[in-house]
């Protein structure tokens, strides 16, 4: 019963994350406010990171529960290592996601500074008003 339940939860998590990605993509593309676009961008990157974590997860046979990929005993014995290999999740996606979280923080800081700059120059953070001002400036420039 336990592996079936675990598989059900795994599949429903995939569905939930797909919905989250779709909603945040709508927020990035269709919402007019630039700050709302930034909020949607954070949700988008977190959802994609969750996909990477989910790929590294494993569904063990029987009643065994997956454990974090951490050696809890120094120095480890041979049987301890083989038990860890048999039950631990994949550590590689976790290491990559650790880096991706920090990179998305840096990208968000850059975009926030850019949004502030746009507000100081043009007096608005609304994407439609910005497009209108740009078109008007192009017409006056000709």
């Amino acid at each position: 019963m336990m592996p079936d339940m675990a598989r059900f939860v795994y599949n429903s998590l995939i569905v939930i994350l797909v919905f989250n990605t779709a909603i945040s993509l709508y927020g990035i593309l269709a919402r007019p406010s630039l700050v709302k676009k930034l909020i949607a961008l954070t949700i988008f990157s977190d959802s994609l990171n969750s996909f990477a974590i989910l790929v590294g997860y494993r569904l063990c046979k029987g009643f065994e529960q997956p454990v974090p990929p951490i050696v809890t005993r120094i120095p480890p014995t041979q049987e301890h290592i083989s038990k860890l290999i048999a039950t631990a999740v994949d550590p590689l996606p976790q290491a990559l996601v650790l880096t991706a979280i920090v990179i998305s923080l840096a990208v968000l800081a850059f975009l926030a500074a850019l949004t502030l700059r746009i507000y100081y120059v043009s007096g608005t953070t609304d994407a439609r008003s910005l497009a209108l001002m740009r078109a008007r400036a192009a017409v006056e420039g000709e």
Partner: protein
Amino acid sequence: MTGLVALLLCLIMGVISLIATYLAIVERDLLKALLFSAVQSTAYAFIYYSLAAPDIVLVYIPVAVGLYPLLLLIVIKKTERYERP
């Protein structure tokens, strides 16, 4: 039995994150949208914890519940609070 509790936590937090994401995108008040996105980040932290990734949780909670809202709060304070319809 702890395995079952972790799975149920995972599912409940997934549903909470879905609702919080929807509310954060739909909300017109940007401050409230920011709070909803912090709720979504907390739910994701619980999901990571029950997916056996405690090292991600240690980095994700200060970054996504602390630094993201702080940065965006500064931006909202210096610009506009409400999204125009």
